[in-house]
């Protein structure tokens, strides 16, 4: 064959990004389109658990086996996204002993390393565990950062020639004679990186094959193509605690139930979750009682959660799928397995396959299977290497050793930066320019912000998910304007303002569900600061750019000893 086939992948979640990487590594020509940022969908709204498979060891052993297999793979290829925290299934006195034994047997049957530890041993590992926890099963659960993982997959795909279009919505699936021939895409700000204010437009993307990896939205794409895909979206709530009360994943050892897991995630701990079917993956109620219930129930495992500070809550929708003939009524009964729907076989529509269901942990395996399927359509016999070749950032982790002296950063900041950047740390942090900390809660320095801007344009929410800037306890109160300031140089003022607005809006959104206690104080302070010192409650400058030349240069600007213009550090001080 001449040029390789061109594959259009819809959806920039873990599944789509994983497919794009796999296919491009096999030499195919790939374009990925995503309507928001990478991870805009469920992937950006999940729990961050790298499953050991323990959670499925009783109810869904096929999923459990896949999980432990992929758990081992991700530990190798995504070291900078994964933290091997270990996990515990803890048993309280009222929890069923029979189920505990069943869980243990299930883990062992599925090849999940599992050990029973006593209550005292469990508390030695996790001192904040409830005193009456009787015993626990320890399993190799881990924590995974979905943002970093998807960004790394996309970066790898780009390295292999793929085109990644974010803020580009598929409006129509183009069909000619019962064959999908491409997509009609609407770009919010033109092709390429997102830049606020850049004019958008429509584009027809021709493709030899289309992969629909839109998760909970798969039915919508199906509609555009005239096929029926019965995704059953099911929502779940997660609450982010300000600090890590636990450093191990804590699961409740009992049959399915709400609010049964705490995952340490970066600087925080995330409580989860619930499982409730919804009509629409975008419009569903987010209710306070869901958050209250979760804190209350999980306090039975970790009592200090009761009074601990939460910084925000968010909801995600699972893209659950089951063949229509099964007909489960309770969403918790729906399998967590994934399905590959070849529309040629199923609906006599050539040129498109949808992948639905599944889990984040098994994204790579899903990508491999669908890539095999796509290759077979074209008679291509290319091997999959995504399980062996590390993701960008995870190639060589020896850099962690000498992080501090080398980059001149303070201990915890250097350490956290290197944990996030992995093997890219040297490339990003080794700068001779001043490198102040821009986000102090998460310890993110200017160099890392600049690197993210280079990778994602003026979109500060994209910068946020790459760096964690503004995701700490002040929720952006003290750094959003600094992040906007970092756009200076490359981008003009109105672009920076629009990007700043977008970030502020997003930050406030999740805090709505945490407005009591300390986070309410924080929000009050943030509001006062942003309204009074930054004029964000009513900005007369919005719309027209500010005429900076109308301002004088400040004291000493003309003649005198001061320098004209503004030095970033405020310039030399008197007598210094």
């Amino acid at each position, binding site marked *: 064959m001449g040029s390789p086939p061109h594959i259009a992948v819809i959806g920039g979640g873990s599944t789509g990004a994983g497919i794009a990487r796999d296919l491009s590594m096999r030499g195919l020509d790939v374009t990925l389109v995503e309507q928001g940022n990478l991870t805009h969908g469920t992937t950006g709204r999940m729990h961050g658990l790298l499953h050991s498979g323990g959670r499925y060891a009783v109810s869904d052993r096929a999923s459990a086996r896949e999980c432990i297999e992929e758990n081992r793979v991700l530990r190798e290829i995504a070291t900078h996204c994964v933290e091997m925290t270990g996990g515990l299934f803890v048993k309280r006195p009222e929890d069923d002993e029979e189920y505990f034994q069943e869980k243990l047997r299930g883990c062992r049957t599925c090849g999940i390393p599992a050990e029973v530890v006593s209550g005292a041993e469990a508390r030695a590992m996790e001192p904040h565990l409830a005193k009456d926890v009787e015993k626990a099963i320890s399993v190799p659960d881990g924590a995974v950062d979905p943002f970093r993982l998807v960004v790394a997959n996309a970066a790898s795909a780009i390295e292999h020639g793929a085109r990644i279009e974010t803020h580009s919505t598929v409006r129509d699936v183009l069909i000619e004679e019962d064959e999908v021939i491409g997509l009609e895409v609407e770009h919010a700000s033109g092709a390429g990186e997102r830049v606020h204010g850049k004019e958008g437009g429509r584009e027809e993307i021709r493709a030899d094959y289309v992969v629909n990896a839109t998760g909970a939205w798969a039915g919508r794409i199906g509609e555009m193509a005239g096929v029926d895909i019965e995704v059953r979206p099911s929502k779940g709530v997660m609450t982010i605690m300000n600090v890590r009360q636990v450093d191990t994943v804590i699961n409740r050892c009992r049959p399915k139930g709400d609010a049964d897991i705490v995952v340490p995630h970066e600087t925080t701990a995330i409580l989860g979750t619930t499982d409730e079917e919804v009509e629409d993956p975008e419009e569903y109620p987010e209710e306070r009682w869901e958050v209250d219930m979760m804190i209350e129930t999980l306090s039975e495992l970790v009592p200090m959660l009761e009074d601990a500070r939460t910084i925000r809550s968010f909801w995600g929708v699972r893209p659950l799928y089951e063949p229509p003939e099964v007909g489960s009524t309770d969403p918790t009964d729906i399998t967590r397995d994934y399905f590959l729907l070849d529309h040629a076989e199923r609906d006599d529509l050539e040129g498109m396959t949808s992948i639905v269901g599944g889990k984040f942990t098994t994204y790579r395996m899903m990508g491999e299977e669908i890539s095999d399927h796509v290759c077979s359509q074209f008679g291509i016999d290319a091997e999959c290497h995504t399980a062996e070749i590390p993701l960008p950032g995870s190639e060589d982790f020896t850099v962690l050793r000498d992080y501090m002296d080398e980059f001149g950063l*303070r*201990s915890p900041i250097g350490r956290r930066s290197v944990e996030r950047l992995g093997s890219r740390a040297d490339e990003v942090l080794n700068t001779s320019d001043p490198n102040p900390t821009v986000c102090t809660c998460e310890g993110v320095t200017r160099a890392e912000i600049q690197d993210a801007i280079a990778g994602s344009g003026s979109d500060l929410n994209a910068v946020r998910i790459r760096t964690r800037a503004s995701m700490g306890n002040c929720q952006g109160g003290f750094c959003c304007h600094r992040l906007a300031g970092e756009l200076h140089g490359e981008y003009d003022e109105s672009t920076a303002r629009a990007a700043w607005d977008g970030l502020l809006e997003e930050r406030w959104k999740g805090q709505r569900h945490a407005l009591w206690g300390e986070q309410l104080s924080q929000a009050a302070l943030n509001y006062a600061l942003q309204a009074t010192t930054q004029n964000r409650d009513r900005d007369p400058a919005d719309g027209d750019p500010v005429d900076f030349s109308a301002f004088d240069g400040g004291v000493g600007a003309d003649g005198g000893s001061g320098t004209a213009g503004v030095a970033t550090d405020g310039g030399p001080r008197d007598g210094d």
Partner: protein
Amino acid sequence: MSDTEPQTDFDPIEPNTGREFEPVDVFPATEEFDLRPGADSCFKCSACDTSCPVAEVDDDFPGPKFQGPEQWRLKRREGHEIDDSVMSCSNCMRCDDACPSGVPLSQMHNTARGEYVEEQMSKTSVEYWRNRVLSNYRTSAFLASKVPRLANVTMNFGPARWLMEKTMGVTAEREFPAFASTTFREWWAERGGADESRRRARAHRERRGLDRDADKRVAYFHGCYSNYNTTEVGKAMVRVYERYGYEVVAPEQKCSGTPMFANGMLADARRHAEVNVSSMADLVEQGYDAIASCTSCSMALRQEYPELFDIDGIETVAANTFESIEYLRIHEDLKADVREARVSGDLAREFAYHAPCHARNQGLERQSVELFGDLEGAGIEDVGDSCSGISGTYGWKEEKYETSMAIGEEMFDHMAAADGEVGMTECPTCAMQMEHGTGYEIRHPLELLEEALVENPRSEP
């Protein structure tokens, strides 16, 4: 009526108002607490940073907000290093006092410093040994007090000091304090100890028309400095208290630990704290209150001990510890007595008063000024709310000397501008700094109180 009848339910033992949180002893064998949850109270207002005297003069010091809540929040239970800047914090505790939200800042600093020294500082470094010697002042003072005159000469002997700076990093700029020829405890024993104190207290009770066996008993925590150097402060405490009918005991005690906290020598501090707590706890059980004349000592017993250690009886001791003048202001009508008194002679002077940071953290920064404002024959003027800059052993370190003097500058200026030519403060190391910066003689409020209230104090042995 007392001067300081509590007006609110504000509890001086818990100076911060935030939600209480119980740190968990993560590794019971060591002193490591998991203080990450303490970061929950921080909403980043930066009040702590703006009140930190070190951050004000040292641009390389990241300040208490980083040092405390931010660093702790970023920490992992294992394998996370503490930034070395924690050694530049002087433990003045002003950040504690400034925080509107109850973040346990000094506890965070002290714990982090302990971890840093334990795990990251080389145990063979000069810095480590210098800090250890400085923080174990009690040991040095004990040795010196055996040969006070010789010590006074040699410790300040030029070439010896030069050598100390070069080999140990102890600044040659300062003069070592003079050692008393008789320690407080020697004086106390010679005077007849607790029995004699009871006899005198009873006599005073009778004179005042009180019940001869009234329950007025205090255990004096004199600390190292009143014992080895300014023994007149300790003697003044005893005489003033006896005059009000209190029986004084001077139980077995070691260093309060203040210099050890500041140097991250938590294991040393704990050893001393165990002795102090066990002897004080017994007495508190019997109805005694613990009284300190040094504001850092009272600070250690009431705040740092329970924050850092888990020792039997520590909470009871903390709840029953008071600073010497604070206690009398609570239980006696001190102000009226002082208003009626007059002083003459040596102490009939104008005093330039500096409130130590640790007094501030206990809410005591105004007590001396309020008390002596009406005293006939003497005057007192507050020289402002800046930090003296010495912070115990901090200003003794060669590399910290400049910072220490830069912080102290404001206080020196204000002292020079004040009418008085004699300084006054509760804290012995602030006193050193005041003297060093201005050349003034420095007195303790108890000395003035003794002069005002006790007739012929120096007529006894």
